[in-house]
């Protein structure tokens, strides 16, 4: 009797958790999809069903959506590329034994424990061209000053700098934990055979780290694409629409201009894009031996 339904008890035990998870993820997603099929202007009492009209309007008649999409790609790819290179260098450095390594590791991690809103406000003050501290330092060493986030030409790069400052430690953390988990024997054997540091990195460390690298890049890329907090606090997508990423545009559409139907449609399209992108990256990683 005890062996009649061996899987029933574990399923029953896990069920409440799965139901709760579905309720807080799938439920709102279904509601958002339903909202996207209606003309939903919040102050209006009527929300007529319009099918996929919102999707067509956004894809075919909203150049600002495509601008936001483009800015999102530039921001995400730019920030993650720099974070990966810097993060790997720092991880390799911290992987060596030296005096004060633990303290230095702690100091490197400070940016990721600061609230993003605080980061945004602080950088906004530092970036102020006339009285901000960054231009003060540049002036004092006779380097040219910048307008940073206050002009369209440098605003996006300035935001990428903030992102790199804030999330390189996160990338470092993932890569460092990967490095620490690598077997020591292949490296020791290579050194005995006369391999230099670059050869060790290229032929042993990097290939063994591929799964960790893929995870780190995918994770950060998804996060960078949907990033909102510091962008909203520093530029709100400006000047003009120079830093208006898709998440900022969706927020404005829904919670500032109150077009909930259109904002929901953009959110669903954003979700589909992220799922497709994730699958493409994983397939590419499989082909290139990253798994």
């Amino acid at each position, binding site marked *: 009797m005890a062996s009649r339904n061996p899987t029933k008890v574990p399923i029953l035990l896990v069920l409440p958790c799965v139901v709760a998870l579905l309720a807080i993820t799938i439920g709102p997603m279904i509601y958002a999809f339903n909202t996207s099929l209606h003309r939903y202007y919040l102050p209006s009492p009527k929300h007529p069903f319009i099918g996929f009209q919102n999707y067509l309007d956004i894809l075919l008649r909203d150049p600002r959506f495509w601008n936001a999409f483009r800015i999102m790609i530039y921001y995400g790819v730019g920030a993650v590329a720099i974070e990966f290179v810097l993060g790997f260098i720092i991880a390799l450095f911290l992987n060596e034994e030296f005096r004060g390594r633990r303290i230095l590791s702690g100091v490197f991690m400070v940016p990721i424990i600061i609230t993003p809103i605080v980061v945004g406000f602080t950088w906004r003050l530092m970036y102020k061209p006339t009285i901000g501290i960054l231009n003060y330092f540049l002036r004092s060493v006779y380097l040219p000053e910048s307008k940073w986030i206050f002009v*369209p030409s440098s605003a996006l790069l300035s935001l990428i700098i903030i992102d790199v400052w804030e999330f390189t430690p996160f990338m470092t953390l993932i890569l460092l934990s990967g490095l620490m988990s690598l077997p020591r024997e292949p490296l020791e054997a290579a050194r005995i055979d006369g391999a230099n540091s670059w050869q060790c990195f290229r032929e042993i460390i990097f290939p063994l780290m591929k799964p960790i690298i893929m995870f780190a890049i995918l994770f950060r890329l998804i996060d960078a694409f949907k990033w909102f907090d510091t962008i909203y606090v520093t530029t709100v997508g400006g000047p003009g629409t120079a830093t208006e990423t898709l998440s900022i545009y969706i927020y404005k559409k829904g919670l500032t201009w109150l077009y909930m139907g259109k904002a929901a449609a953009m959110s669903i399209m954003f979700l589909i894009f992220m799922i497709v992108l994730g699958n493409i990256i994983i397939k590419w990683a499989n082909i290139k031996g990253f798994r």
Partner: protein
Amino acid sequence: MGKLKVFMVIGIATLVAISFGICGGAQGESVDWHQFAGEHEKILIAGCERVSFRALLDLIPEFEQKTGIKVTMEMIAEEELFTKRLLDATSGHGVYDVVWLDHTVQFARAGWTEPLEPYLNDPSLFDLDLYDMEDFVPTLKNWGLIDGKLTALPVGDAGVDILFYRKDLFEEKGLAPPGWDYTYDRLYEDAVALHNPPEYAGIVARVKRIYPLQWSSPIIWSYGARWFDCLEHPRRTVINSVDGQMAVSYIAKLVQDAAFEECAGYGPFEAASDFEQAKAAMFLDISIFMPWFEDPKKSKVSGKVGYALTPLGPRGRFANIWACMFGMTSYSKHKRATALFLYWATGPEITRRIALRAGGVARKSSWRDPDVMKQFPKDWVESCLTMMDYGGPEAPWPKISQFDSFLDIIGGGYQAVILGEKTAKESLDEAARLMDEVLQQE
């Protein structure tokens, strides 16, 4: 003995009536301040973190003692307040009885604020003789009147567009200070003459996307341009008229030639802090910034700022006038108690006491109060009082629900011209087209 008893009763009754009058309010006031005593009424207010609201917050215990109504006012940062009050109104389970409103139309047309006429017409809640509706600055009183119903009352932080200028820099350059006949052409010439990068700019302005509309509206109107074809329920955007293009071209030229490039990303506080830190010679904006500039502990220009009227344009002189408004929510469960609070908070006496601490308020009598006038720079008070009579034809804002879309689309149109991305005609034609699409959904 019988007559003595009668006289004693009459005398005691008179004394009691007088003492009730002293405790209750002004002599002859119809309002019953004690009508909610013992009923444990509570009011929750969504307030904004502003100097005038801090002043009101300090006075609230007096109201509580007078009426027995418990009042809680949340002091919320502006950006957060926009979202919070929206969620409260749309949730179906709103908790606020009073909300701070910068723009009254959206809330009124969505049915989220309560028309106030029934309460104004109840003498136990509003003594209209003492309250004196005519004492409000007309533009601000009308701002609460939506589709013929009064839905909000001005409460504080009232401001009007004026010109802030550095008296010392004008003197240094030998320029005549702005006076009654100061024109926008002279403003441009003086701003360019004073422009001294990197030390300071000729003028500072907030050019970040939604912000140009506030300070540039006097310029737009004084060139004869308008945003829309009519004030209430507009059908067509007309900012792209020839007058509109000329006005926006002027604004762009002024900012390009006499302001720092980084103005493109400036909101109100960046622009004001540049002026406060002596990084600009002029600032055309709302009068409520005066306390910042005159604070000797933080401001580098304290005592050096002159306050003048907005300049004259080809079609006259205009100013935008603005104030914080209080609206009663339609879902409030304490409407009569809330009405009594509104009567008290926006009445002449409390408004005067807020003015003593915070400056700009919505009642003319408070501005003209000698104690208020001597607190603040004389030319600031005079400029503000004068400009309140020059309210623009669309002041403070067009009465449309899609106010935030309006700020973004039209403000974005101005910004594109200022940044040199488009000509005035291209940018304003596109802004008008986009805005007309929005209006069709009104």
